[in-house]
């Protein structure tokens, strides 16, 4: 039903959009009643109206060093008399080459650093003209090579990102960003929420431009991030690719490939394409649940593609009647715990395993649910209920040295998976893969914003 509704909305909008007769454009409330109009305008191969009010061009992208203005004029009545172009803010007008069907062409060779203020005037045989002001555009030829311009645009993005300035960052992103500017805006805000500090530097490896002014770059990056949640300071380095399109002012980010250096929180939507790491080096990612992790490239990619929390393996050891280990699901930290705290919830990690029968100790404020014989990959979401606090029914006289009575407390069993409900909206899940003496081997995953992993 929802699908049908969305399609109907789109179809209706498109019909309204396209069926509007010339001069009665509904999206401007019929405000445009021009008798003389310009159907389209191109500046070299760029759409004139989408290039912004002012545009920087680079010599390397100009065909024969020229700027070509190409368009088509229409009139309601009569015929087109002439098309004039001014490149000096209306001080002088030059005649464009006009064809019978209304198409016209005008070319000039720009000088570096000079600002050209362009206008296009179409005059019909009755002397009526188009909305000349609407064709105003400032064009400047940037004599730097493209690499310098890309560096300027990249520096602006990196600086805004490091300073967690979402507004300034998005001003360097094009409206037509391939992964949707809306998604990138949300994703960088999520990044800023997940990271308390970001250090990022980059160097350009490769810069190439096409005739439409689109610029492709590959870069190396090096970064350090301090996650807001979790204890570690993470650093990584790698290579990735971006593309930029001409904008107002300067270049605007058009696309980014995985691994990402911006918008890590929604990599599946923000990244278009991927640059594979040569040695499967570990990279920093932010899971859809908001967890900051450093994973080998393959795992990070899988996490991104499946939109799910990554799975890692670990183990815990217990020395009966002496000490046992607890485990923090958010960052994988292990802590040696005093045996006397096995049942009172006073442990550092989220859970621990004690005794030869693999009884479960759980931190105060954390509960656990047995989700049955299931692989961790199949645990896609935390169950709505069935959580218990094992330490409240421990039933074992602490310090007595006696083994706990079978079945009287919550204990791990091989092949079963367990979900931990953590403070806030975080969840962790483990699958017990085996036992070796007093060691419990398990796989685990975590989400800071559950219940979906």
């Amino acid at each position: 039903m929802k699908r049908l509704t969305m399609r109907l909305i789109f179809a209706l909008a498109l019909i309204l959009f396209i069926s509007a007769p010339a001069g009665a454009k509904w999206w401007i409330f019929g405000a445009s009643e021009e008798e003389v109009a310009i159907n389209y305008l191109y500046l070299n191969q760029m759409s004139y109206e989408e290039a912004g009010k002012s545009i920087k061009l680079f010599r390397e992208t100009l065909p024969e060093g020229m700027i070509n203005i190409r368009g088509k004029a229409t009139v309601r009545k009569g015929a087109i008399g002439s098309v004039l172009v001014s490149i000096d803010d209306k001080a002088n007008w030059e005649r464009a080459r006009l064809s019978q069907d209304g198409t016209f062409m005008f070319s000039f060779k720009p000088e570096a650093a000079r600002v050209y203020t362009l206008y296009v005037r179409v005059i019909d045989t009755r002397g009526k003209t188009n909305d000349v002001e609407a064709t105003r555009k400032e064009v400047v030829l940037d004599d730097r090579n493209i690499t310098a311009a890309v560096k300027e645009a990249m520096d602006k993005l990196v600086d805004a990102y490091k300073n967690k300035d979402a507004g300034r960052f998005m001003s360097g992103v094009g409206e037509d960003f391939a992964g949707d500017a809306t998604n990138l805006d949300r994703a960088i805000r999520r990044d800023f929420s997940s990271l308390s500090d970001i250090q990022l530097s980059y160097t350009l490896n490769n810069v190439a431009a096409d005739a439409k002014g689109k610029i492709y770059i590959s870069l190396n990056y090096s970064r350090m991030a301090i996650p807001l949640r979790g204890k570690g300071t993470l650093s990584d380095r790698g290579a990735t690719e971006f593309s930029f399109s001409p904008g107002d002012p300067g270049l605007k980010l058009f696309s980014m490939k995985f691994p990402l250096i911006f918008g890590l929180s929604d990599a599946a939507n923000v990244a278009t394409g991927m640059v594979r790491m040569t040695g499967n080096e570990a990279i920093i990612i932010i899971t859809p649940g908001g967890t900051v992790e450093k994973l080998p490239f393959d795992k990070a990619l899988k996490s991104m593609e499946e939109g799910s929390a990554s799975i890692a393996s670990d183990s815990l050891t217990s020395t009966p009647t002496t000490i046992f280990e607890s485990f923090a699901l958010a960052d994988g930290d292990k802590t040696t715990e005093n045996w006397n705290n096995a049942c009172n919830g006073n442990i550092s990690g989220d859970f621990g395993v004690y005794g030869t029968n693999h009884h479960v100790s759980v931190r105060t404020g954390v509960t656990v649910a047995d989700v049955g014989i299931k692989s961790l990959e199949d645990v896609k979401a935390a169950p709505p209920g069935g959580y218990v606090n094992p330490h409240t029914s421990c039933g074992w006289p602490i310090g007595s040295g006696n083994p706990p009575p079978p079945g009287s407390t919550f204990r791990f069993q091989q092949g079963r998976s367990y979900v931990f409900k953590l403070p806030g909206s975080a969840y962790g899940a483990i699958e017990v893969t085996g036992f070796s003496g007093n060691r419990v081997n398990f796989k685990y995953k975590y989400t800071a914003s559950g219940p979906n992993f």
Partner: protein
Amino acid sequence: MSARKKWTIGLCIVVGLVFPQTLLARPEINLSNELSFTYNNVTGPGAASSSLSEGGHYLNVLGIFGNGKVSGYDYNFNLGAKATDDRNNDPMTWSLTNFQGRISDNVHTLSIGDVFESFSQYSLGTALKGGSYKYTGQEGKIPEVTILAGKAVSRWDSLWRETKTKAIDRQVYGGRVKHNFTADLWAGLSLVTSRDSERINDTDPLYDNNVYALDLEYRPIPGLVVRAETAFNNTSLSPQEGAAYSNTHGYAYRIEAVGDADPSRVSLEYGKTAPKFVSLLGAATPDREKFKAKWRYKYSKTVTLNTGFLWYRNNLEGQRADGRTDYYKPEAGVTVRRLFGRQYSSADITYKLNLADRNSSTTKVDHVVNLNYKDRFGQLDSDTNLGLTSYETKDLTASRRNEYTFNQSLGSRHTVGMFILKPGLFLGGTSIREELVDEEDKIYEYSLGLGLDVPTMKITSQFKVGQNKLDKATGDDTNKGFANLSVYWRPDFLAKLNEGMFFLRAHWNDFNFTTAARDFRETSVTVGLNIQF
């Protein structure tokens, strides 16, 4: 000799034969070079966390660009190289960063080296190392034809299989025919084929991929443009070493309409990409149906309204175990300039909603509200930003995290004799509160800056010092002190080289954590010279 080496040498010979000839025709050549030396010092028990390379390192970036005309052909070339001993900067000591040449007579265009021919969104939008030829029909009577061949690798040294930068060998061939049927309508047909070989890791997937795409653009009335594209793929995939190839097929299509005439700009976009659509060289998100609308309306010279709506969903073929998720992302904003009649004032308020709906039940609702106000009070420029973001999880277990952000920057500019002073102050704070567990993390940052310019000596400089603190409800707190300095000087004696600049950049970070074993300090000083001629 391997085929790859032959290919590379062949390319170099073509460049070597063609471009020296053109150089004889008095080309215009621009050269830029930036040489810098950096010294990094990292100390403290947590020094391994720093992303800096300890010790002294050099970096040299060279760029050469030239253009000219010979025998009726325009040509340009672009060559770039980088040298560094900083392995955090680049795994290679020497690397070629750009290598591009183009020659054209307005009808025939030949490009070699770094080739970037963007065919269409689904088919090709990636730079290649290779060559392309384009025939541009005069007056649009004959179709425009482009053919290309090359390797899809991002670095030149990947092409000659340097161990440190080796990438999967992806050989690409492509062709495109584009024709202007009328002055208002053109259509293009693209075919891009790629063949992968030589895995780097056993788990690397190898693709043999063909993408066929048809795209068009139509302008029915002034101000309105309609674009559409449909594409199909035929893919063989071997997911890892030893795994047999399996064949898949997919499709993608999109249609977009943009109406642009003052005072309004409206864009509508609908697209669908099948789960098995693979575009290795274009841009597409598989398993996606999407509708997007944007409307920008200039209500008056000082008031602009912006609205947008994005919807997309996955599970197009019911293949996902966790079912279907729909995302709804509407947003609205208004910008008012010259508020209260103040010449330099500008206020901007935006509201964004992010709603996820899994299997018809709402799972997440995020609200983002942002208020920005800029103004000038006397000689003081002020920029105030207030933000509220609420992340709410609504299904199985309700949770809500509220983030409040406040930033205030004040800046000024004073001329004192030959000096221009630009003092600045920044105060910022973020509070992140988990409502259910009543926990709050707080981030504070404050900094002082001073810009000092001496126009007569062509010196610009900036100094900034501050502190960034993170107070966490649970876990390690962080306290970072920082300072950075940058100085740029364009001395007259370097002006003879067209443009020349000395620079000094330095930064110092002192990271302190509750767990002292994580503490570290990093100091970095860079001096360099940039010249252009």
